């Protein structure tokens, strides 16, 4: 049995105890990695559809490149370890989809390939493969290329005047705001007909997919709640301090990769804490770091760094919130 399943059952039991009255039928202790991963794929569907609708073949191209290279990387690295190779757990596919959805549509092909190989290789295989990784593989790959190829992925990654899609010729809403203080309308951010990384533009798609994940209990609701609450509170404080900036709490919530990160990236059960309380702390930490980086850092968006930092703190959070052994109340 892998460590992930161990952890997962521990958590499921803990969660089952807590939620016994409200939703006992949803607790599925026999849930396998594979059915979980299929759930994640289903929940990503609205985001994928929305990105294909907004970005057309840019989204399709990124998806194909990332999924193919993640699978290739997975195959290569499991072969190097002489382990049986199976694509049936879909985890590499999900890493690929998440990397693709976090890329700007115009990112060159090699950036996506490098992100996938680094994500699977350094983020996952060196730690022993599925269920063992400390850091979210997709975010390891994404942060690697963000730092390595900031020129393609930063502000300028989104501006390709020669492209066919209208949205791509604009800068991202976060970026426009950071550089010149122009505030986009909330409805644009909500529906997502604007520029940004493929999966992050549409708030509504992220919410639909995320709520599905939480209802299916594949993702624990404490993490997105923690992220959103913290961002709302800190965004509110920022609004009080500088009321004339025009970038409201809702802008903070709907803009950038926040919802995508909160629902699909931070909720990875392997790299987040075990207990509900730990999960909430984890979410709150992600939210706080996102706000710190958004308001002050030079990088346009802080979600990947925030998730990596909190992944690093997860073992410590687990230490201080040890899940109670079974039979103890």
């Amino acid at each position, binding site marked *: 049995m892998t460590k992930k399943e161990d952890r997962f059952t521990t958590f499921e039991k803990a969660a089952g105890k807590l939620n016994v009255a409200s939703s006992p039928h949803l607790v599925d202790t026999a849930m396998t990695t594979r059915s979980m991963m299929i759930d994640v794929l289903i929940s990503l569907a609205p985001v994928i559809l929305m990105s294909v609708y907004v970005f057309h073949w840019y989204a399709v191209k990124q998806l194909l490149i990332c999924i193919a290279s993640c699978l290739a990387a997975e195959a290569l690295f499991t072969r190097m370890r002489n382990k049986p190779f199976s694509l049936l757990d879909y985890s590499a596919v999900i890493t690929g989809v998440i990397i693709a959805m976090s890329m700007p549509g115009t990112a*060159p092909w*090699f950036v996506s390939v490098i992100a996938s190989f680094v994500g699977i290789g350094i983020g996952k295989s*060196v730690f022993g493969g599925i269920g063992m990784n400390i850091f979210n593989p997709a975010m390891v790959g994404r942060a*690697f290329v963000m*730092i*390595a*190829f*900031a*020129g*393609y992925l930063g502000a300028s990654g989104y501006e390709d005047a020669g492209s066919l899609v209208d949205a791509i010729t604009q800068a991202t809403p976060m970026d426009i705001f950071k550089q010149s203080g122009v505030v986009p309308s909330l409805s644009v951010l909500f529906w997502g007909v604007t520029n940004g990384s493929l999966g992050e533009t549409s708030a509504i798609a992220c919410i639909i997919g995320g709520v599905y994940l939480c209802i299916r209990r594949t993702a624990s609701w404490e993490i997105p709640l923690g992220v959103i609450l913290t961002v709302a509170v800190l965004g509110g404080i920022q609004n009080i301090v500088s009321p004339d900036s025009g970038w409201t709490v809702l802008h903070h919530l709907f803009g950038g990769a926040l919802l995508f990160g909160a629902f699909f990236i931070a909720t990875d059960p392997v790299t987040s804490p075990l207990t509900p309380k730990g999960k909430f702390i984890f979410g709150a930490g992600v939210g706080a770091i996102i706000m710190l980086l958004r308001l002050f850092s030079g990088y346009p968006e802080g979600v990947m760094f925030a998730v990596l930092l909190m992944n690093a703190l997860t073992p410590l959070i687990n230490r201080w919130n040890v899940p109670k052994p079974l039979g103890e109340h």
Partner: protein
Amino acid sequence: MADQPTATERFIQGVLPENPVYRQLLGLCPVLAVSNNMKAAVTMAASVTFVLLCANVVTSLIRNLLKPHLRIVVFTLTIATFVTIADRILAAYLYQMSKTLGPYIPLIIVNCIIICRCEVCASKQSVFTAASDAIGQSLGFALALSSIAAIREILGTGMFFELRVLPAAWPDWVIMALPPGAFLTFGVMLAAINWISSNK
């Protein structure tokens, strides 16, 4: 001192079997910090060679006079003096490079390789052996440092010793010139060396 290795053995051991970086894992700060281009790496390796050679020779010369409880003080004093001299020479003749290396030259003082060699070899063996040990260890250090610097400079800038080796269309992996690139390159190299030596 029949059981002590001879000068030749010391030299050979230092280069590969007991490579200070890959095998003994000593002196990691400069290996990570100044390995983003070859010029800096070579200058660093040369400075370490100078300090290690001088410190080893001086220690070996006075080895019979050393009192056990004062020997660390003597080592530190010797090393710090030669590091200061190396630092001033660099500032006088390679001013830009000495600015680039910045605090990492004075940090040679606390580089464990040097104090370790003084303790293990120079304070027990003859001047000749100590000198060949110093050269062997420095060569090993230089090899390790430049192996990492070569990878980082080529991937990070497409250049080697500031000469272009990769086509101009090469997208620079900026991360390689930055701290994460140092950790990752060294980690992967170390694993590769472990893998090769375990397959022998």
